[in-house]
Every structure is written in structure tokens, then in C-alpha cells.
């Protein structure tokens, strides 16, 4: 026999509600990772579709790479990045990353909306113009 069963049951319903609401909200929803588009003029010209570094590495570590670039450029005055294969690139967010990935909205932003990050870089750096 339970005492104060009315209050206990109300409390337990609240408890179950709080801890199952993510299941209730997501139930039956399709699970779709963002579709990334590599369809940009510069990438289409490339012989092999490769990023600066290994794709797996770029997926997880591109923010660190950008942070390192900024330090190199702004503090050390070095603007040349040499990748694993010995190719040289200009260390620049807007002139290198976004030259290839000029479709910022279907690429950078697609991921960032999904993962709910909102880098403030574009307050100062120029994003490529969206071709209407």
C-alpha cells in the first residue's frame, strides 16, 4: 500500500515526462545527417577531390586548423601552409577554404546548423557572395 499516492503518482508522472521527452519529440523522425555539397566551380576543376588534409581529420579538426592558421598569420607573419603532400597553400579563411568551398551555405553552414554551432568569423571575414 502506498501513502500519499496522489502526490507520489503526480511526481512520478513528471519524472517520466522529463526523462522521456527526447524520445517523444524524436519518435518516428527520420535520422538524416546534413548533405554536404562539393559542387563548386573550384572543386569541380580539381583532378582529385581532396581537401588540404585527410577528410576524416578535417571533419573533426578543421576548427583547430583554422585557429592555428590565425596564430601563424597574425602573430608569426607566416602565410604559407604546407600540407602532408608538400603542396603549399595561402593560410586564409576566405581566400583558401572558401575559394574551394565557395558554397558556404550548403557546406560549412549545413554542418554547423545540424551541430548547432555558430562561429562568429563572418562578422569580420568576408563570406563569398551567394549566387542568386
Amino acid at each position, binding site marked *: *500500500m*502506498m*501513502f*500519499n*499516492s496522489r502526490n*507520489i503518482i503526480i*511526481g*512520478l508522472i513528471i*519524472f*517520466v515526462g522529463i*526523462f*522521456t521527452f*527526447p*524520445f517523444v*519529440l*524524436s*519518435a*518516428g*523522425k*527520420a*535520422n*538524416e*545527417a*546534413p548533405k554536404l555539397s562539393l559542387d563548386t566551380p573550384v572543386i569541380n576543376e580539381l583532378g582529385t577531390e581532396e581537401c588540404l588534409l585527410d577528410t*576524416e581529420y578535417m*571533419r*573533426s*579538426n578543421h*576548427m*583547430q586548423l*583554422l*585557429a592555428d592558421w*590565425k*596564430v601563424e598569420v597574425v602573430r608569426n607573419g607566416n602565410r604559407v601552409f604546407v600540407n602532408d603532400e608538400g603542396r603549399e597553400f595561402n593560410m586564409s579563411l576566405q581566400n583558401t577554404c572558401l575559394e574551394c568551398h565557395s558554397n558556404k551555405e550548403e557546406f560549412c553552414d549545413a*554542418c554547423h546548423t*545540424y*551541430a*548547432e*554551432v*555558430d*562561429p*562568429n*568569423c563572418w562578422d569580420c571575414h568576408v563570406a563569398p557572395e551567394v549566387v542568386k
Partner: protein
Amino acid sequence: MGLNFSLLIVAALILAVFLGVEALGLSFLFGVIIPYLAIATFIIGFILKVVKWAKAPVPFRITTTSGQQKSLPWIKDNKIDNPATTSWTMVRMALEVLFFRSLFKNTKAELVDGKKLTYQWEKWLWLAGLVFHWSFLIVVVRHFRLFLEPVPAFVTLIGKIDGFFMVDLQNVYITGVLLLAAVTFLFIRRVLIPQVRYISLAADYFPLFVIMGIATTGILMKYFYRVDVVSIKELTVGLFSFNPVIPEGVSVLFYIHLFLVCTLISYIPFSKLMHMGGIFLSPTRNMPNNSRAERHINPWNYPVKVHTYAEYEDEFRDKMRAAGLPLDRESSEAEAAATKE
């Protein structure tokens, strides 16, 4: 003893995931099956525990509260500390749950010069406890950016405020750091204060180590050994929508983080971590002190055969009168009624 034992268990758990995922490829076990089992254990175990507690009667209002009780109208009562109504009791409970009001009154006893006993207000436990619990809550709420698609607006807002500071071009979540700092403080306090260490058992160290492990792996994932967050979100959204998937390229660090979380939540119903539900059932906190206004009858009272003084007099009236003893009534009630007619 308890300390080493707990440390060993947590190390063994971490090693088990590491070997399970890296050597045996058991990512479906650690990424899908164990999380489902853990959440089921948590919810069902929690309900059963509360139902078990609810079976224990609490017969009396437990009035060991500080503050003046409600009595005569010209005596000012303390409505929060010694509430007489349900709504003020809810205020007291809310303050307890949100701000740990009882712990705020914590004191520390000390011998000064080896003979004088003094009591001091001890606020660090309260402060660290409050920081710990609030950070934990905010970290968990923030995590819903990785659990739900689309992300609810309030989760985004909390993330924005929490990640206000940027270090090295990245938002650093303050609560994540505070959580680890506070739990470390709570652990060090347990070890350094001899009296507290003396009463600490494995059941006290184990949850601390598990939470330290969760926070450490989380911070490593976010700032040091980065993981592929997009794939991880696919995994978690899959779990919550009952379409489980194991995407490629999820780091073992994440499986360790997740397994420690599963350990923690499935451990809750069987441990002192049940204080999460138990606080609401604390008799000194959840009962209005209205003993003067209302009669509370012990629920396990059995009917007691009583013999009142009036009945006693009825039985022995003649003998008492004969012996010259004073009587409350000269005749029994039944006789009195009869004479009236």
C-alpha cells in the same frame, strides 16, 4: 580502501569499453544496446524505488525546523522555515531543491587551543555543491543540441550564453569547466578532511570518479582530441528516434564518455544518487507543520479499548457514594435523561 576500489572499478570500466570497441568491434553493444538498457534501468528502477519508499508511513509532522511555528495571531511566524500550509511548504521545498538552503546553514565544529569547542559557518561545501549541481544541469541541457534535430531554441540560447567566452577562436563552455572543478573540489575535500574521509565509503567515491570521468572525456573531446561531432549526433538522434545507427568514424573516446554516462544513470536507482528523488520525500522538508491546527492520526493505529472516567464512575457510583468519595455526576447520563421525562 573504498577510494582505491572505486578507482579500480572506473579504470576497469574504461578499459572494458576501450578493448570492446577497439579490439572486438563491439560498437553496437556500447553505442546502442547498453544505452537502451541503462535508460530503462534508470527509469524503471527509479519508479520502483520511489514506490517502495511511499509504502513507509510517516505518521507525524516532523517539526525539527528552525523558525517560529504558527500559533497565536500576535506571534510572528516564520512562513518559509516553519510553514503551516501546503503552498508555503512548496516554497520551502523549492528553495531547498534550487538553492540547497539547509546545506547553507552547515556549520563546522572545531577545538580551539585544544579545549574550546567552537562552531563556524562552513559555506564551501554549499558553494561547491551548488556550482556542481547547477553546472551538471546546464551541461545536460546543453547536450540536447546533440540529441535533438531540430535543436530547441532554449538549448541554443543556453549554449550561446554559456559559450560567451572564446579561447583560441573557439567557444569555451564555462559550465563544463566549472563542473570538473567542483567535482574535483568535492573529492579533495573528502580526502583531506580526516573526519569526512573516515566516513567515506566506496559508494561515495565511485560516483565522484564516474562523474570526473564523464567530464574529463567530454572536455577532451571538445577541446583536445576532437571527435566527429556530426557522426556522433547521427548516433544519438538515432537512439532517441528508435532508428539506431552506428556511423563510421566515431572515436573511442566518445564510447568511453557514453559508457560512463550509462554506468552513472543505471547506478542511480541503487545508490545514494537517489537523493534526486528522495529530496522531495524528506519528511522534515515536505510536511507543513500544522500539528496545532489539525489532528494527525497514526495510520497504523489499531482500535484501542478504552475505559473513560465517566464510564468508570457509572460502574462504581454506588460504591463511591457509599464510601463518601466526591462524584462528578450524581446519576448516570441514562438515568438523568429518564428522570427529565
